[in-house]
């Protein structure tokens, strides 16, 4: 299976963390890089969107978001019944897995470019739209029966949250300015993308290492879930995309989106809206297991799946 060098940076960070190295990526560098990555992904998507008839996107968007909403709804009972997690914990973990990871998406994009596989440029629209329904569903699952509330807070937390502002803002700027208008900015937002992604992954490795301790608390069930869930959701994504007529690259990317678990927007939103959920569980699973799993095993698997489906359907 082809091999994506940026993953090595993640592994280096993981190793440094496990070795208890004094290497620390300053929090500000983390924030700065995440601002850059979110903006750059948005801009890239906006430029592609400008090449696209928006009306042709309506159906795929509805299907992709609708099917995506199944993920937390399926995950919740599994977590609550099989995993015996409390309602709040099950809802929070379900929200994490229903939402998406921007960096996993970026690595998948790099992987596809690496193997020379094209994909629909407007995939980033799905990325933006998949980020929040799961969070709303998560809060609803946690609150069902109890007196509601919190929905409003989450709505604002998410829509005015920095990841949506930057992704969506970038999307709109890219769409307004178009490829030509953005050309003078390419040297930063496009050329530097992969190198800065590598540095960000180094940091993610350090963070993931610091979350490994949470895994003990998470227990065997959750670790298993954190591997099985992305495989299931990835298959669902590849299938949905293929049925929608997307390219192999697009199918691999949608599979990755479905399979990925959020660790930027979801932890922040759940901490506010479902405070009684234990963040060590959801973050331990999404960042300690699913994120590395997707990077190393998941993405090539989803690409393989997308290829299989394309042949058959």
């Amino acid at each position, binding site marked *: 299976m082809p091999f994506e060098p940026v993953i090595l940076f993640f592994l280096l960070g993981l190793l440094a963390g496990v070795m208890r190295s004094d290497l620390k990526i300053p929090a500000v560098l983390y*924030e700065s890089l995440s601002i850059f990555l979110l903006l750059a992904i948005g801009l890239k998507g906006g430029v592609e969107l400008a090449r696209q008839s928006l009306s042709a996107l309506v159906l795929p968007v509805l299907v992709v978001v609708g099917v995506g909403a199944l993920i937390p709804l399926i995950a919740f009972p599994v977590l609550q019944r099989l995993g015996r997690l409390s309602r709040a914990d099950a809802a929070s973990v379900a929200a994490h897995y229903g939402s998406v990871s921007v960096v996993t998406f970026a690595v998948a994009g790099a992987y596809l470019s690496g193997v020379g596989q094209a994909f629909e440029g407007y995939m980033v629209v799905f990325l933006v739209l998949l980020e929040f329904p799961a969070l709303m569903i998560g809060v609803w699952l946690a609150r069902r029966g109890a007196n509601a509330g919190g929905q409003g807070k989450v709505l604002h937390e998410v829509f005015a949250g920095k990841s949506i502002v930057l992704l969506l803002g970038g999307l709109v700027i890219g769409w307004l300015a178009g490829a030509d208008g953005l050309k003078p900015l390419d040297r930063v937002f496009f050329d530097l993308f992969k190198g800065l992604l590598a540095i960000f992954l180094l940091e993610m490795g350090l963070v993931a290492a610091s979350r490994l301790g949470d895994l003990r608390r998470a227990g065997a069930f959750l670790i298993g879930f954190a591997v099985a869930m992305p495989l299931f959701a990835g298959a669902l994504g590849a299938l949905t995309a293929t049925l929608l007529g997307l390219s192999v690259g697009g199918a691999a990317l949608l599979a990755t989106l479905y399979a990925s678990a959020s660790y*930027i927007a979801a932890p*922040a939103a759940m901490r506010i809206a479902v405070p009684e959920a234990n963040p060590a569980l959801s973050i331990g699973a999404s960042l300690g297991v699913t994120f590395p799993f997707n990077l190393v095993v998941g993405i090539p698997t989803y690409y393989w799946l997308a290829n299989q489906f394309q042949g058959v359907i």
Partner: protein
Amino acid sequence: MSMLHTRRTLLTVICEASIEARVLADARRLGAHGSTASDARGWGQHGERDGGWPMSGNVRIDILCEAAVADTIAGHLQEHYFRSYAMICYLSEVSVLRSEKF
């Protein structure tokens, strides 16, 4: 130089960064006339919080106010946040110059 030293209470809250805005809003609503915050890292019952990424950052909030206000805020925090969030708070006695501010 005429300095009128008055006793006031300094309430210090150390908590996870994700609830900074809410704690500040609560304090304002409950009678604080100002506050100061800065980023921090630490460890306690909820394990290590090293500030390496946004969800693991702490914040230290200092609120200088009258004793009764400090008690009200501390009680409110105890009731609403102590169970679910990494948080400690403590009170100390200090002397201030312009007591009408606090």
